[in-house]
């Protein structure tokens, strides 16, 4: 529903004439994010600073217009979709790296700063920002904080919530608070902790303070091929079982390897059932000792074609294949759909077997490329949107895969968020009282439900899928 002219005029007064998008054709650009969900916003507003965000949020609150913060739109769970219409608050103009403090090892950035740009700026000073989503060339730190994003190097270094130490937040009522800070312990409830990963449903992030880490003295990247995905899964458990937590431990299956090799020529053996990328970092002598230990464990688990990146260029190439894998899958089919369920690491062989069976059952190719060390799956279901009736099969396969994850003691999402695509499944992992406790938090911060409505929580009135799913809950058992 288009916003009344008077509202558009007010919005223009706040952010300037050029920073309100309302033409129907222009709005379609903001219909989607990286997921398969879509909804056209009523208006897109591009504020230049926090005060403009406050004014927009106040105006929207007064008129009962939903507000959905949006970064680069690379999210994979529909977090940036204006499901109930309203204003998409596009934060890309707020893209200043405000400060990098090399002594305190922190950075303060605006939400629209691209992850890779922060990496580069920190890298020039001998530091790095650990969370490295595969979309890091485009995704923003604000989006990362809102979704609590992960990435390959989160195995050792931890995910976004472990690195965000401060947030400036504009709440639904237009009030502003700075949460957190540089001190290790803070007095009072950990609001920072609950805001990170709240998917824009509790407030809009307008500034982020992150912790930076010194670049390791040395890095060794290994690539190993395995005859089967099972053998590779066992190798993953075995490496960690030996007391070695590598910086990253990533797996790609045969379908992925084929697509990546055709595109990047990263040197992955195309006849392998699976490839593991293992990275260890730290002191020079430790890297030697650790990589030798890793090699021994991998060989004991049927590894072949073991290769260590000889230099930075080769390491970059090995990683380019991994990080660009999803794009490369476009060679097989034009569209993909992926979940990011997590299982306890030892259940990887079981869940991957189920994923294969489900793909076969629905006659859909599936490409697995994922954070094996964390047990964090990414089964990419490949399809062509132009094929009639395909979405029912894709949705059905995705749902069954997630169900398998939950049945094996896992959770719905490790790093992509719940958004609009998995909210109907939340009762699989949480009892009604668990969800009610989360809703208390939502109601405290956003009693009118104006911030990113329709996300995270199941909505049985609006989502008929819920009816089908009644009667199953594998919520955590505490004996």
């Amino acid at each position: 529903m288009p916003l009344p002219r008077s509202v558009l005029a007010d919005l223009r007064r706040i952010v300037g004439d050029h920073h309100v998008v309302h033409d129907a054709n222009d709005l379609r650009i903001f219909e989607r994010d990286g997921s398969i969900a879509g909804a056209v916003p009523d208006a897109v507003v591009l504020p230049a600073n926090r005060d403009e965000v406050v004014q927009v949020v106040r105006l929207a609150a007064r008129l009962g217009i939903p507000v959905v913060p949006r970064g680069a739109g690379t999210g994979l769970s529909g977090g940036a979709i204006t499901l109930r219409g309203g204003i998409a608050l596009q934060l890309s103009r707020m893209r200043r790296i405000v400060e990098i403090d090399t002594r305190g090892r922190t950075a303060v950035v605006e939400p629209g700063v691209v992850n890779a740009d922060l990496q580069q700026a920190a890298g020039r000073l001998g530091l790095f920002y650990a969370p490295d989503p595969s979309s890091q060339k485009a995704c923003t730190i604000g989006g990362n904080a809102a979704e609590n994003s992960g990435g390959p190097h989160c195995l050792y270094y931890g995910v976004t919530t472990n690195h965000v130490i401060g947030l400036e937040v504009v709440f639904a009522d237009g009030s502003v608070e700075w949460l957190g800070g540089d001190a290790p312990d803070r007095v009072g409830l950990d609001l920072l902790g609950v805001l990170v990963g709240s998917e824009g449903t509790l407030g809009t992030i307008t500034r982020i303070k992150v912790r930076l880490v010194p670049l390791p003295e040395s890095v060794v990247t290994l690539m190993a091929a395995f005859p089967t995905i099972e053998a590779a899964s066992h190798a993953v458990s075995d490496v960690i079982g030996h007391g070695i937590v590598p910086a990253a431990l990533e797996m790609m299956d045969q379908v992925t390897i084929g697509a990546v090799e055709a595109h990047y020529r990263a040197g992955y053996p195309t006849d392998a059932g699976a490839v593991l990328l293992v990275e260890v970092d730290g002191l020079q002598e430790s890297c030697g000792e650790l990589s030798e230990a890793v090699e021994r464990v991998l060989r004991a688990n049927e590894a072949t074609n073991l290769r260590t990146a000889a230099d930075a260029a080769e390491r970059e190439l090995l990683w380019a294949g991994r990080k660009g894998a999803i794009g490369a899958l476009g060679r097989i089919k034009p569209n993909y759909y992926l979940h990011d369920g997590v299982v306890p690491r030892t259940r990887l062989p079981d869940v991957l077997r189920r994923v294969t069976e489900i793909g076969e059952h629905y006659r859909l190719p599936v490409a697995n490329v994922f954070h094996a060390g964390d047990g964090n799956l990414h089964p990419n279901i490949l399809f062509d949107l132009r094929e009639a009736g395909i979405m029912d099969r894709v949705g059905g396969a995705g749902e069954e895969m997630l169900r398998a994850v939950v049945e094996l003691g896992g959770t719905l999402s490790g790093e992509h968020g719940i958004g609009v695509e998995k909210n109907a499944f939340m009762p699989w992992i949480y009892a009604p009282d668990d969800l009610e406790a989360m809703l208390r938090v939502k109601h405290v911060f956003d009693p009118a439900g104006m911030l990113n409505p329709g996300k995270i929580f199941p909505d049985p009135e609006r989502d008929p899928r819920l009816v089908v799913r009644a009667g199953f809950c594998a919520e955590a058992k505490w004996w």
Partner: protein
Amino acid sequence: MVVDGLEPGRVARPENAEQVAEELRDAAASGRAVVPVGGGRALGLGDPPERFDVALETRALDRVLELSQADMTVSVEAGMTLEALNATLAQVGQFLPIDPFNAPGHTVGGVLAAGLSGPLRLRYGSPRDFVIGLRVALPDGRLVSSGGRVVKNVSGYDMNKLHQGALGSLGVIVAASFKVFPRPLHEVSVETRSEDPWREAARALALPQAPVALELASDGRLLARLAGTTSGVRRLVAELGWTEAGPDAWEEHARQSGAAWARVSVPPVRLREVVDGLPAGARWWASPGVGAAHLDAEAVRAARAAAERAGGSLVLLAAPVELKRAVGAWGTPPAAAAWMTRLRDAFDPKRTVSPGRYVV
């Protein structure tokens, strides 16, 4: 079981999570006040409770619920002590890097609710960074779970964070799941004394791989823990040039506490200026890389003012009631205190749990 001079009318010793929830439900319904008690190691934390009807002792909830060695996760009931848990984990070559002061005897639930951490925070972060699931008895008697048993999880709000350091104000933790860590392949503890201990500490922190723990005390003693591969640790020990510490050094260090003591938490780069401002002869010990210091609660007013000026806080971990009433346990209320109060209202509207003791 006296808290700030108050004695409870009754001591409840629930044997399971359901009984904890029942005690809370009954107390809320009848307007009584409950103070949860684990190992009793942090009972001095916070302002004096306004009322104290029931002491809710959790020590009978002391089981390991699930230990998955290969997944490196563990789920335990809240009344288990950290020592017992780490003894169990040691059998499978793993450990939980939570090392609060005033040890031994902290329970899992107590240390999480009180938001305590110790020297190992330098490398491993605080429990906030590796708690992956909680089960909490809400003041209205519901038992709710958050998180799960996987090491990476963004399914819904991260409720685990809200209950840590909340001193039970949103509910009483009855069980917790953790990501655990492999014991380092090799580890050496070293110590030294220095005329210029801060400079020496800075040198240790600037090693090509920082120590996993580094402590500095008012008597000029420095204690560091170096961990990693055998060859890596050998190099760090050589570069640092300190002497090897005795086997009990860390256990002894963790025993420190005081009848009246406080925790300073400031940005690490500001820690020295706050500690330097303490009166001559004051007893303190600090984690320079973390930004935390513990000290005897003399001259609390001046130290708190300095800590708050530095962008941090000073919290009383135990003190005579008169001192608590005079200066307050928590200091200047946090900026977002109004939101915290609203959250407390949503979870504990009758202030059933430790009324008056927490910040909100």
